[in-house]
């Protein structure tokens, strides 16, 4: 074992898993016509404290630990996992994973190198957020509640929570790679309900987080703006009118509306869908899929971001992957399996929810590069349209390319100026087509505040998105008014 202060050594000390145990398990998993085998160890702690009705009612704390063993032959993957991290459980899982690939044993021997520490150090957090005393989190939520209720008498409910995670992982693979990482994650959520005339109620939400120390969120100067925004949003929506239906020129605000990129193009560029040829973007590398000036990036290396990782869940260092460059499709997002089958390089996008799940190509932080237009000028350029300032969630049909997402704050634009707020607006479009309709790109790129969670095939992973203000011509708006 190496020095005891590395994450890999911590696994060794805690569970008795060192190079000998890893090599034995990988050797077992390789006894067959196996191209690749890997072991994924996880020991995570998650806790959350939540407040509603003015009191911090409950705290919870969950320990998740286990090991997953994968054996890959061609396109076939065998996976077995156990919630024990013991030599016995590891051997059993390795045998099961291997047995899925029938055939004559190859007789594998593996020498792991390391343990290595990731080259990146994107989240040097000294105190794990799960080790911050509960009393500190309780005090924060109490302060948020008092502040929110004092802001406006129409606020009738405040729900807030602090959710913290410390994820320790270690990956060892049959090519000798051996690496471990410690991934802190913090999220602060504020949701308020405002009651207006005739008992009408609206909700406002704002949150923030990232792979950062909880201390960064404890100062009033960091959490008060979140409460201000949640309250403002609820009050704006009290006055919101039903949204019109039909095709409009739409201006998307900076930051979280980057969820458009995530849904409209990001998923469709994940390697698994393209290897299988079931994505609307399949076989379109080198083709124009966006207007000139549109460049879309996935970058897992941004310090402290919710979607960032020193290494992905297969041990590959994360990177900055250009997906669309000046309107031309240039790249896909890959895990190891799909990169190998397509003859590409892994991009550090192999991610999984936990040791109980197989890795898949997933996004990290996905955003559009800034352009040169003045955001105010972009608004002024629209005669009759919609300004979508922030969004709830979205969804995409990878194969047909159709996507939809819901605005949580939107306004009518009349003659280049914001008019009344609108409620219940959703936007629908076609992924390979929507970015070709981008006619203006603002200079104001913003990344979201760190609350995104992406679901795929039943697995959730934290992600980030970003966008400058953009104008999209002729997008279908789904409202109720004709």
């Amino acid at each position, binding site marked *: 074992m190496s020095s005891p202060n590395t994450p890999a050594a911590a696994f060794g000390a805690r*569970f*008795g898993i060192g190079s000998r145990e890893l090599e034995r398990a990988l050797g077992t998993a390789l006894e067959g016509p196996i191209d690749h085998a890997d072991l994924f160890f996880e020991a995570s702690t998650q806790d959350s404290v939540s407040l*509603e*009705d003015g*009191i*911090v*009612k*409950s*705290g*919870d*704390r*969950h320990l*998740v*630990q*286990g090991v997953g063993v994968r054996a890959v032959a*061609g396109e*076939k*993957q065998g*996976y*077995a996992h156990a*919630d*024990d991290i*013991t030599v*016995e*459980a590891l051997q059993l899982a390795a045998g*099961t994973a291997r047995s899925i690939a029938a055939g004559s044993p190859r007789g594998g021997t593996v020498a792991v190198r390391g343990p290595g520490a990731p080259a990146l150090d994107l989240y040097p957090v000294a105190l794990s957020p799960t080790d911050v*005393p509960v009393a500190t989190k309780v005090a924060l939520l109490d302060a948020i509640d008092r502040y929110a209720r004092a802001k406006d008498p129409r606020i009738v409910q405040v729900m807030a929570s602090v959710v913290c995670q410390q994820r320790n992982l270690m990956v060892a693979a049959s090519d000798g790679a051996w690496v471990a990482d410690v991934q802190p994650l913090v999220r602060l959520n504020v949701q308020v*309900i405002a*009651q207006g005339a005739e008992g009408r*109620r609206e*909700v406002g939400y704002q949150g923030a987080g990232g792979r950062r120390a909880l201390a960064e969120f404890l100062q009033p100067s960091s959490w008060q703006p979140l409460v201000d925004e949640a309250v403002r949003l609820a009050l704006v929506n009290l006055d919101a009118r039903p*949204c019109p*239906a039909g*095709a409009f020129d739409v201006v998307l605000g900076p930051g979280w509306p980057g969820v458009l990129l995530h849904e409209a193009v990001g998923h469709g560029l994940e390697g698994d869908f393209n290897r*299988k*040829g*079931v994505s*609307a973007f399949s076989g379109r590398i080198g083709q124009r899929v966006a207007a000139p000036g549109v460049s879309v990036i996935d970058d897992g290396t941004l310090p402290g971001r919710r979607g960032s990782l020193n290494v992905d869940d297969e041990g590959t260092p994360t990177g900055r992957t250009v997906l669309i460059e000046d309107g031309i499709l240039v790249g896909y997002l890959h895990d190891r399996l799909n990169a190998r089958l397509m003859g590409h390089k892994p991009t550090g996008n192999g991610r999984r929810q936990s040791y*109980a799940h197989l890795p898949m190509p997933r996004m990290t932080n996905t955003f559009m590069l800034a352009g040169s237009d003045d955001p105010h000028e972009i608004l002024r350029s629209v005669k009759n349209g919609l300004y979508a300032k922030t969004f*709830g*969630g*979205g*969804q*995409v049909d*990878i*194969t*047909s390319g*159709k996507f*939809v997402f*819901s605005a949580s704050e939107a306004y009518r634009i009349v003659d280049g100026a914001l008019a009344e707020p609108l409620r219940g*607006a*959703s936007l*629908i*479009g*076609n992924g390979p087509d929507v970015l070709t309709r981008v006619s203006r790109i603002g200079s104001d790129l913003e990344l979201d505040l760190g609350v995104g969670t992406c679901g795929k095939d039943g697995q959730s992973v934290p992600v980030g998105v970003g966008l400058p203000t953009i104008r999209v011509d002729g997008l*279908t708006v*789904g*409202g*109720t008014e*004709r």
Partner: protein
Amino acid sequence: MTSSALSPQARLSGSNAVQLALERARAAGAHSADAVFAESDALEVRVRGTQVDTVSQSRERTLGIRVFADGPGGLRSALTSSSDLSRAAIARLAEDSVALARATAPDPTAGLPADGFASELPDLALFDPADRALTTADWIALAQRAEDAARGFDPRITNSEGASASTAQTAICYGSSAGFAGEYQSASHSLYAQPVAAQDGAMQTAWWASASRTLASLDSPEDVGRIAAERTLGQLGARRIATCEAPVIFDASAARELLGNFAGCLSGYAVYRGASFLREKNGQQVASERVTIVDDGRRRGGLGSKPFDGEGQPTRRNLLVEGGVLRSWLLDTYSARKLGLRSTGNAARHAGGAPSAGPTNLWIEPGAGDLEALLRGLERGLLVTGMFGHGFNPVTGDFSRGARGFWIERGARAYPVEEITIAGNLGEMLANVEALGGDLRFLGSLGAPSLRIARMTIAGA
């Protein structure tokens, strides 16, 4: 080195783990406590074309402990969970729970149910022991049959996301310091197929699935594959329609999604928080008189069935909406107390979480006739076969989701449509239900028949 304490030999059985957790919580100073142990053996296989794509096998055990600690004017509570089931780890977990609870605020509403626990645990046909004889190869063969049925259905089916089969055997053990202890076993199996069709350079995909407690009641893989193929082919050549208002028919699978949106608004938590558009509607007309909605935790073989809920209360049949009138919420002990009511046996809980209030087996009672009969009654309008996106606001009932399906002319499918949204307010939509089909179909624990809504706004080109 702690590996000896973690070895399988040192693990406890479910009921022993629960009892030890309760003892240790009490010893650590808890006022009261309950614990859930869940154990699951699962297998999932996916095939694609003629190849096995993935085989994933798992065995998971989780112990969750909820403790209450004394406080001024109420109880403080906390919840912890772990997959580490050694005696030492359980003791530590119980002590951590009590320490965590002491850091939270007292809540006058918090606490275990005092009485009303399930006294008999009926056999709800939640598993068939014979199904355990199936091997991994058998499940692969089932998935392959579904894939073959989908791929072979029509030459325009050119590709697929694959077909999968999954099976899980689960044991739940629950105990509380209020004096209840119970356990039950269940199984769940599912089949899923998702072919891809291509025509004129455009691809479409749709899925179909079946899920059940026993293999005998699972739809045949041939049916799952064929229906997935039919639904996929039906979308080929889909186009947008012009923005309009029109009557909308939801097929049974799309109607089931509407019910899912509605179910969240019936949860006692959404109601007492004032976060449901139904919050002040108890006893009032909330839907057309044709609409009756039932939740029944004891439906034989139901995927939401269980003999007792997550707090040891007996599950039962609850009439939620009767002839359009809202009759009951979905309640666990906490949300019931907040509303001055009693639990309806709807405490939903997994080992690692606090109880919430949710449906067991929830369905809309069917009318008569099938989907085709509903269509024949429609001069022009939209048939929705699938929805996507998250455009539903439970606080206001505002509804705007992406949809696909068919444009209907003179009672027949004229052409497939896509890239449209349908919008309205869920309250008004339910009030405007004009007709219900007799084709009630469950997928998982939710079921609905096809239904027709008089008018919605459709946004398109």
